[in-house]
């Protein structure tokens, strides 16, 4: 479909550009309205030193990456603007430049080193589960979590933690409450400011124990024990979800952790009856 | 055997060895 008068493609380009402008305005309107509606943009506010480190790493890398991206694509967009055939620009024929090629191999390598060196410290810190104040085992089941307090204050406490959101809310027959899909009958309770070691395992398939505010995610693997740790700096209730596909109700087995003051924790421990582990009854009692 | 056939046979052998090798290694020696 050749244009008769204008150079090939320019008329449709011009039309496309004004159309693009109209679409951009529409899109901006949608995006801005989204902002007004309490949309989330970043990682959840950190409540542990590790989570705070993760925020810093992410911000650092995002800054670097944005600078590089804008830099490189400024060249591309300049080219699109200035090196057009329709502007009469004639093509140069160069196709190599050793200096430039060495530079853009070596400089990215240096930038990568500048990234991984500070990050290495955080990786090592995340793995250091030594000398915990409290050790709790989190066992993934289809589809709930089981918590057993193994060592430290509260050892012997043992219970299941199941989604508490009523089915009517999921089916749309009742209005959804604020913590829809993020509430359980028996949350994990831990004291503030103490190093808590979480040992993960599973009874059936692979699950994953994840609390974004803590910066902690650890796969729970049947027949194997893994571990991770956190030290919460602030009291409060923190919520996460299972992070490994584990069957039909993978989306319906959240993790809720209540971080309380030490006196509150002692009182909670004292109130727990050391009841028999529900895990023994799991096969008969588990919802199908 | 043509040159093409020789090349093809070598490549097919690589594929077969990888396939049988992975299974054999974990079957005989474990994870």
């Amino acid at each position, binding site marked *: 479909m050749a244009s008769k008068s204008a150079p090939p493609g320019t008329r*449709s*380009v011009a039309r*496309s550009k004004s159309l693009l402008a109209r*679409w951009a305005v529409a899109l901006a309107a*949608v995006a801005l309205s*989204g902002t007004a509606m*309490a949309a989330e*943009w970043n*990682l959840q506010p950190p409540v542990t030193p590790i989570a705070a480190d*993760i925020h810093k*790493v992410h911000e650092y890398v995002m800054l670097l990456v944005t600078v590089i*991206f804008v830099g*490189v*694509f400024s*060249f591309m967009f300049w*080219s*699109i603007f200035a*090196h057009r*055939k329709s502007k009469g*620009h*004639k093509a*140069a024929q*160069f*196709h*190599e*430049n050793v200096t430039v*090629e060495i530079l853009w*191999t070596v400089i*990215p390598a240096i930038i990568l080193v500048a*990234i991984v060196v500070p*990050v290495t410290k955080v*990786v090592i810190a995340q793995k250091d589960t030594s000398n915990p104040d409290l050790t709790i085992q989190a066992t993934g089941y289809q589809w709930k979590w089981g918590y057993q307090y193994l060592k430290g204050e509260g050892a012997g406490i043992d219970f299941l933690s199941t989604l508490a959101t009523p089915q009517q809310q999921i089916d*749309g027959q009742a209005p*959804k409450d604020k*913590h829809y*899909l993020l509430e359980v009958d028996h949350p994990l309770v831990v004291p503030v400011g103490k190093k808590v070691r979480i040992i*993960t395992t599973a009874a*059936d398939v*692979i699950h994953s124990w994840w609390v974004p505010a803590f*910066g902690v*995610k*650890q796969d729970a*693997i*049947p027949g*194997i024990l893994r571990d991770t740790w956190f030290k919460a700096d602030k009291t409060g209730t923190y919520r996460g*979800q299972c*992070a490994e*596909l584990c069957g*039909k109700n*993978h*989306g*319906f087995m959240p993790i809720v952790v209540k971080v309380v003051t030490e006196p509150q924790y002692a009182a909670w421990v004292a109130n727990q009856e050391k009841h028999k582990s529900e895990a023994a009854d799991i096969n008969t009692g588990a919802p199908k | 055997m043509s040159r093409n056939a020789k090349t093809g046979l070598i*490549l097919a052998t690589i594929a*077969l060895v*990888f*396939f049988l090798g*992975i299974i054999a290694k*974990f*079957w005989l020696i*474990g994870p």
Partner: protein
Amino acid sequence: MSAVLDTHGQAHEHGHHDQHGGYSGIMRWITTTNHKDIGTLYLWFSFIMFLVGGTMALLIRSELFEPGLQIVNPEFFNQLTTMHGLIMVFGAIMPAFVGFANWLIPMQIGAPDMAFARMNNWSFWILPFAASLLVLSFFMPGGAPEVGWTMYAPLTVQQGMGMDFTIFAVHLLGMSSIMGSINIITTILNMRAPGMTLMKMPMFCWTWLITAYLLVAAMPVLAGAVTMTLTDRHFGTSFFNAAGGGDPVLYQHIFWFFGHPEVYIIALPAFGVISQVIPAFSRKPLFGYASMVYATSAIAILSFIVWAHHMYTTGMPVTGQLFFMYATTLIAIPTGVKVFNWVATMWKGSLTFETPMLFAIGFLFLFTMGGFSGLVLSLVPVDIQLQDTYYVVAHFHYVMVAGALFSAFAGIYFWLPKWTGKMYDETLGKWHFWLSMIFFNMIFFVQHFLGLAGMPRRIPDYPLQFETWNQISTVGAFGFGLTQLLFLYIVIKTIRSGEKAPEKPWEGADSLEWTHLPTPAPYHSFETPPVLK
């Protein structure tokens, strides 16, 4: 290069079919050993699979429009996510690039056809059979598997019969890819025209040569993983069962040893297409041809030592996490070199912006964004937060849709004239591009925020704070899906009633199919090798 036109075998009368192997109609397509016919079959098959997988995506996104379960139940939702992934990866995007390989490699190296023309026929015809098995699994008792395209054990051991259908389909798909790769390597190594040294080959052929080696090495490993799943399911083995002395995480190691090279298997041919399109529309040679060859080779080799960056949360020792983090970040270097070389190709060129070039530029911009989100994910501490969230979903859709799919669109618009002798409608092509760009970003850019905010993958329902981005994403999905119907219309309209293409529709295109063959290319080309300078 002297432009000696090869008119052997060209139909002088429209509709003369006695050159098509003697058959006409359906039998022609079933029995063809012609690389052009087989390329066409792969491309149409891949487009059909793209629509099937896309429909599943629309069902997924419909359910995710609002919190709550409105349309499907959780089991079916996970059947959809699983099959969407398997169909798009193995049924759509990989066969599309094999279609390009079949059409272009013989023409670009001056060969009459592929090395194993009859095996080529089988490589294709296995695919509809395998795809049917995948789709059929939905109708088995228990439905399709609900395990994600990654099919982790031991979840796979719990699945019904649909899992076995899928395993069989994966075996067939793998065999098709391996046979295709053997064909491609043998053709490129042994059948180049005299004077076409490896370092004079079009970049598209180089990327396919390297990709084919990746396939030969990686596909059998996937076959091993799913076979071991099959025997754990039915023959009493315990490869992935801790109680029997095995290890569930072993499956992940084996799968991702395939899985990481797999993403480069998808990306490298896409890079190859871009390396043909950008120089053509810049009227300038590809910048740094040798570096591109070395960078592509480096990416391919590195792709074998990074697999466990998909497994940072499985509990590997810290030294393992560090090794895989360092190795993964290394891949950014050769990938960056390629991006810089493409931009340098455009720099001081004489640019025009027909549809292939628009898609190539869109690729460059958006694939690089996907690469950067990959860099973010490669860092262990951040990955701990983002693993199994929508951030990962955003990342791989940027590189595979805005990357590989846009590159495929660029290639189709670029080569349609050579294949059909007709020009596509440039205005409609531009509409396809801009609508795809806008809707693609609407779907997936906001998913980065969902992942950061804490939304896991593979869930049919979600907490309330994720609603806004999910709604925007779903609206984008419907827009994107409808736009691809426009593409179908454009292609069909071109074939049926497109304007006749000139002999050289693209001024700056300089590979053999453009310089030494008429437009459209004859059914048999280069039955005698071209004379090259």
